[in-house]
């Protein structure tokens, strides 16, 4: 690594063409170090979700440059070819709702990712159990997602995001459905996991409860990011 989990330079995204074109992202610059958790905040329509989709290799930016770890994944129209493998192996996702696969138990929800990446079932399940223990939900390993509380489900979702040891995790309002205590617990876990697994974490949020916990915050307004220092309150 060159000291960055993810680096974004001059990223732009335009929807449509001609008179109907909309510039959802005009100038996005961001760097997140391995082990760091940063907040990405902004009002509705500011471009947060578009940025998240670009970072998640779900939509293609119009211009700019994105580097993941030491690998350039997008550079002014050029992109790496296997985006599915990129999402599977190098990016972890945590959603607003946990979106666990209801027909797989907790262990296999996590082990599915390493299995998709070609790891043997036994090793994949071992990795899943380690993550569940690290997130204090080891005792729920054989449970079905519907048997878990909301907080437990979100912890399992975080474990799934970490399953392939990605250099970056994108968390899309991960505390939205949780009360203050559980929301702060999720942020505490994300911070701990980021440090433990050397992962850069970007948390998109509106949640006033957790914003003070970030040391660095990126505000996005009208498609442009502005970096600010956060309070970095201990949780």
């Amino acid at each position, binding site marked *: 690594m060159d000291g960055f989990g993810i680096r974004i330079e001059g990223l732009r995204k335009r929807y449509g063409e001609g008179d109907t074109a909309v510039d959802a992202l005009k100038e996005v610059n961001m760097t997140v170090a391995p082990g760091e958790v940063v907040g990405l905040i902004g009002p509705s329509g500011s471009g947060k979700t578009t940025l998240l989709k670009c970072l998640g290799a779900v939509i293609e930016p119009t211009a700019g440059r994105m580097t993941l770890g030491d690998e350039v994944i997008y550079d002014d129209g050029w992109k790496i070819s296997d985006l*599915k493998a990129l999402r599977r192996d190098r990016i972890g996702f945590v959603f607003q709702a946990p979106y666990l696969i209801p027909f797989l138990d907790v262990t296999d929800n996590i082990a599915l990712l390493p299995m*998709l990446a070609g790891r043997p079932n036994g090793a994949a399940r071992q990795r899943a159990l380690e993550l569940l223990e690290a997130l204090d939900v080891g005792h729920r390993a054989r449970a079905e997602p519907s048997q878990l509380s909301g907080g437990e489900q979100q912890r399992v979702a975080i474990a799934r995001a970490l399953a392939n040891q990605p250099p970056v995790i994108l968390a899309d309002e991960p505390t939205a459905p949780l009360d203050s205590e559980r929301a702060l617990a999720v942020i505490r876990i994300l911070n701990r996991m980021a440090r433990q697994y050397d992962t850069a974490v970007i948390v998109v949020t509106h949640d006033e409860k957790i914003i003070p916990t970030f040391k660095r915050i990126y505000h996005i307004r009208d498609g442009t990011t502005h970096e600010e220092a956060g309070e970095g309150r201990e949780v």
Partner: protein
Amino acid sequence: MISLAGRDILHSWGKFVFTGVGLGLLIGATLTMAGVYRGMVDDAKVLLGNSGADIWVVQKDTLGPYAEPSSIRDDAYRAIRGMPGVARAANVTYLNMQVQQGERDVRVMVVGFEPGEPGEPPYLVAGRQITRSHYEAVADVRTGFQLGERIRIRRHDYAVVGLTRRMVSSGGDPMVFLSLKDAQEAQFLKDNDAIVNERARTAANPALNRPGVPGLLEAIQASQTTSRSVNAVLVQVRQGQDAEAVAEPIRRWKHLEAYTRAQMEEILVAKLIATSAKQISMFLAILAVVSAAIVAFIIYTMTLGKIREIAVLKLIGTRSRTIAGMILQQALGLGFIGFVVGKVSAALWAPFFPKYVLLEPGDAARGFVAVMIICAVASTLAIRAALRVDPATAIGG
């Protein structure tokens, strides 16, 4: 790698099994329809096999005696018996009619035969063959008659002395065997009132009741109350003789029609039940389309219910072929459950059908392949929908 389809099925097995049972009943109906057709063909073959004939001699220019009415004189068999290559020849009559069995009517085919000659039931499951000239009958068990019961046919009662099995007409009606004379009476003789009326009508006809010709009226009236007709002559050829070579001189010199077994099978299967076969084929085609539509609808609905999960799977890098494989396996699993339920259902309800339903293993194997193909094709709609899911929907916005 985890079997996503298998896990999904296990997770919601109740819904899956009940859906499979519903589909299975439809597949059971389809297999039964095929069995009905096979039963019709088998009935026709059994009819020919049980008659013990190599050649059927019938009225000229008819497809008798099963497909069309045929009437020939009952002395024709003597001349046929003398033809080269003929081992045995015997008269038979066939008559479809309703008979009373207890409180119910039974549709039967009354067969008149000469004991010991072709046309006699080849085996019995109870009782004995007819040994008296009159008023004895052998009945197929499907008529419902028991040994010792009496069957009312026209003016007379017949005692059931023997029971046989799988002796049916080409239409599937069980047979009742009588002696030839009894059957001729049943078929050709009129009731007493009709005979009296006919005699009076003949006596009133000056051409038939001439004062100067004594005995003419009596002779004519006597001929009106005796039957000299049968429906066919069944012929057995000598061992090693070609049936067609024996049939040809009969056609040529006796002014009668003679059909070999192959020709009679062609008449029964290709002509007599051809319309029914087409009817059943149409029904089978419709059932296949309905089954495909149901499978497609079920799999499509099940897939739409998992759109969010599919979006998440795609977002985390699951390959399209893994998702397509999951849906295809579920469709095939549904088809498998449906086929097993359908096969068992068809086997359970087939004996209750009034006509013979023949469920052939070959048809079952073909049905299984067809169900799997239908399910695979039907799943394409759902696979297409799944592959069009945008992984970005998992992120929202």
